[in-house]
């Protein structure tokens, strides 16, 4: 039996012919398994959705309670059967609720890992390697130039700058789901107990993290802040907001950006970032290799990112490996790296 009988890549994303379901489909389908709540993976309008309870909650916050026909929460480690195909979710360590999808059928196991990172993260369950025959990995940071530094060291850059420029607001660009809350949690762990001001796009999600027991401390909407309160304060906003009209309320802010892309200087400069914080929710080059080897897989499929380099490494490591050329993923990070997103009407928004 070939793995392709169990799972194939289609224009809508990964699809299981045997189980008749999709994983993270990019267009509405009858039955979907969703790895995590980022909008390039979790879209509204599916008939039935299987995901972790947290991912279902996050989708409801983002898309409204009726984002899918039916919703089924699957706890980590509990096997669910769909048309005779087994589905088990395992922690991916990417953001709160993020899961790898282990799919088993007739003795063959394929793990679709979604986005993942093995590093420590106070905001979500730690990544768990799952033994499998075929491992499906992303490759966002799949180049040897990406070696993420210690998160504590990066957060120290921010707290040092707060001490150095106590009269300036520190505007931190961070993706509203996951990264923003991780920055807050890391600041709290570093002893920063001042009010942290939030852009409107991340209020609900941050409150949700707090309700799940991930202490966010004193966080308030930035629109309520008086100018004097902002001096020496951290303000967290979506990356795009750093360069739009919204940010004009902060006089002479220090602009920081929390992203794995900050490892590349040109990326930071392109975005006018003065304080790059190399903080990623994706596996770096070393983590990708270690995670893949830990699964004991004999075959690697690579979804999105720097697939050429990761496939090259895997072939040298004696694995069968190929890129899937999936389209439509990684836009979250890509947009997080670009300050301005294209107008919705631009013809480029229709994938060819």
């Amino acid at each position: 039996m070939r793995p392709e009988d169990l799972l194939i890549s289609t224009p809508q994303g990964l699809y299981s012919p045997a189980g008749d379901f999709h994983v993270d489909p990019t267009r509405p389908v009858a039955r979907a398994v969703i790895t995590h709540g980022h909008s390039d993976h979790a879209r509204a309008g599916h008939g039935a959705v299987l995901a972790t309870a947290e991912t279902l909650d996050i989708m409801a916050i983002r898309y409204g309670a009726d984002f899918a026909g039916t919703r089924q929460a699957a706890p980590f480690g509990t096997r669910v059967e769909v048309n005779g195909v087994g589905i088990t979710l395992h922690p991916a360590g990417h953001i709160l609720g993020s899961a790898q999808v282990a799919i088993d059928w007739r003795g063959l196991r394929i793990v679709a890992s979604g986005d993942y990172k093995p590093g420590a993260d106070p905001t979500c369950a730690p990544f768990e390697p799952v033994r499998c025959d075929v491992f499906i990995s992303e490759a966002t940071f799949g180049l040897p130039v990406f070696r993420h530094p210690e998160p504590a060291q990066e957060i120290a850059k921010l707290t040092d700058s707060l001490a150095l420029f106590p009269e300036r607001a520190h505007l931190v660009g961070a993706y509203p789901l996951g990264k923003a809350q991780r920055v807050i949690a890391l600041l709290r762990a570093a002893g920063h107990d001042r009010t942290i001001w939030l852009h409107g796009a991340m209020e609900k999600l941050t409150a949700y993290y707090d309700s799940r027991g991930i202490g966010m401390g004193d966080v308030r909407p930035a629109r309520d802040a008086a100018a004097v309160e902002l001096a020496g304060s951290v303000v967290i906003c979506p990356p795009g907001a750093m360069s739009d009209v919204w940010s004009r309320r902060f006089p002479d802010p220090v602009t920081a950006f929390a992203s794995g892309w900050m490892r590349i200087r040109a990326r930071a400069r392109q975005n006018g970032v003065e304080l790059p914080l190399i903080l990623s929710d994706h596996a770096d080059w070393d983590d990708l290799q270690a995670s893949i080897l830990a699964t004991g897989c004999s075959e690697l499929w690579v979804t999105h990112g720097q697939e050429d380099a990761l496939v090259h490494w895997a072939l040298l490591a004696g694995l069968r490996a190929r890129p899937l050329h999936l389209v439509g993923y990684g836009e979250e990070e890509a947009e997080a790296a670009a300050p301005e997103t294209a107008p919705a009407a631009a013809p480029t928004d229709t994938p060819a």
Partner: protein
Amino acid sequence: MNRFAALLDRLAYEPRRNGKIRLIADYFRHAPDPERGWALAALTGALSFRNAKPGMIRQLIAARTDPVLFALSYDYVGDLSETVALMWPAPAAAAVAEPPTLAAVIDAFATLGRGELPELLAGLLDRLDETGRWALLKLITGSLRIGVSARLAKTAVATLGEVTADEIELVWPGLVPPYEALFAWAEGRGPRPETENPAPFRPVMLAHAIEPEDFAGLDPADFRAEWKWDGIRVQAVRSAGGGEAVIRLYSRTGEDISGAFPDLAEALDFEGAVDGELLVLREGRVQSFNVLQQRLNRKSVTARLMAEFPAHIRAYDLLVDGTQDLRSLPFAARRERLERLAARHRGGRMDLSPLVGFASWDELAAARRDPAGHGAGADAEAVEGVMLKRADSLYLPGRPKGPWWKWKRDPHTVDAVLMYAQRGHGKRSSFYSDYTFGVWNAAGELVPVGKAYFGFTDAELAQIDRFVRRNTVNRFGPVREVTHTATEGLVLEVAFEGLARSTRHRSGLAMRFPRIARLRWDKPPGEADRLEALERLVAEPAPSPGRGQRARSSPQQEPEHDG
């Protein structure tokens, strides 16, 4: 080296000019001599690591990494030094020794032989962290790219005390690193350093591009106008003081280019400093920039080259007359002295750039539109616009806003189809930002006619980048071919300054200074321009009026020769 690397790192991210000056000045205040002097030399580009070739760095990294992974990484990062700094396998923490000083690094590179360098460099890289490795590699490959000009670094020195940046510019040509006398002077601890250059460069005065709305506040009676010649801005300095005459030709940045133009230098017989445009003249007619370009960047200046491309100066201004510095006189007074100097000049190879008469902005606009009919005659092809100079303007170094304006001719434009895209380097790395575009030939095929890599806004760059990623039909290494049929594809409105015959391009044409003027999402590729339309432009020098130049959020300077 650590402190200097940290400075470079901060500078790389600091966008504010004043922020950069403060960072550099802060470094100068805290770093000791001679370390800070070597840093100043690095920032002003005064250091040369002739033996440190990128090839050596490539060999070092090749011995330590997989070639495919290195190639993919380099393509992605777009910068050799940064790629190597990030990929360099760090030795075990226990083995790391004290990082080297900048002075020690410079000394080692200056004294060691070529054969010893690879081992030296590898040892230095082992002793530095990512930032240190990046700074070292940037330094020795001479491409700091941290947005700091020599002028800015000198300005930072000036803020240490009471000295001004312009005063530093004047003594600069006679100084050598590590500039201890300069720092002593700037900090009020020592005398003004004496310059020993008998024919020194004077910092050049530059003009701002004028925008339509600027005219409202300006009175034509306050200004003089002259043609903006399409050549290379130069400063010719000749000093006969006492012994043998010293003649130097400087580029507008102060680079001594006398060696490339011995025919011109020999012919000059005035005494003083003339600001003008370097042009090629044949039988009294100014040749196009394309012709001048054939004389530039040649390794050897042969008699044949000089005969075929005779260099001239068309004089705009007189900075020094005899030994008298005129820069604090108004333009009108300097012009009068220049006219007298030009009239008595016997050496040839130099003439006066004529003034353009006008009583109103409308009259000047007419002259700009039709230089041939307004005094430029047969030389009109080499006119790239008009310059406006206040009659009372002093000769000020830098680009002061107000006294001088440049008003360039509107560019040509063509609607072309995006065919290939390549990721940029440096600031644009990881974005598809270099575009090859084509127009339709008689057989109904697209033929590439040029490449452009700027002119668009950041938002437009993001849109094109996304278009490229989603419409790739072929990959050739870092290059992607995108959809370009009559019905599907992206039309780019490309602006350019001129067109010349070229055997290097399949279309037989080469564009000068092409840039993206507009994205035509609305236009089907089938309606883009045809090659015949461009062919006609080669014969037709002046752009048709009314094809207006659009104001861009960040206008790019046409490189170097533009004033």
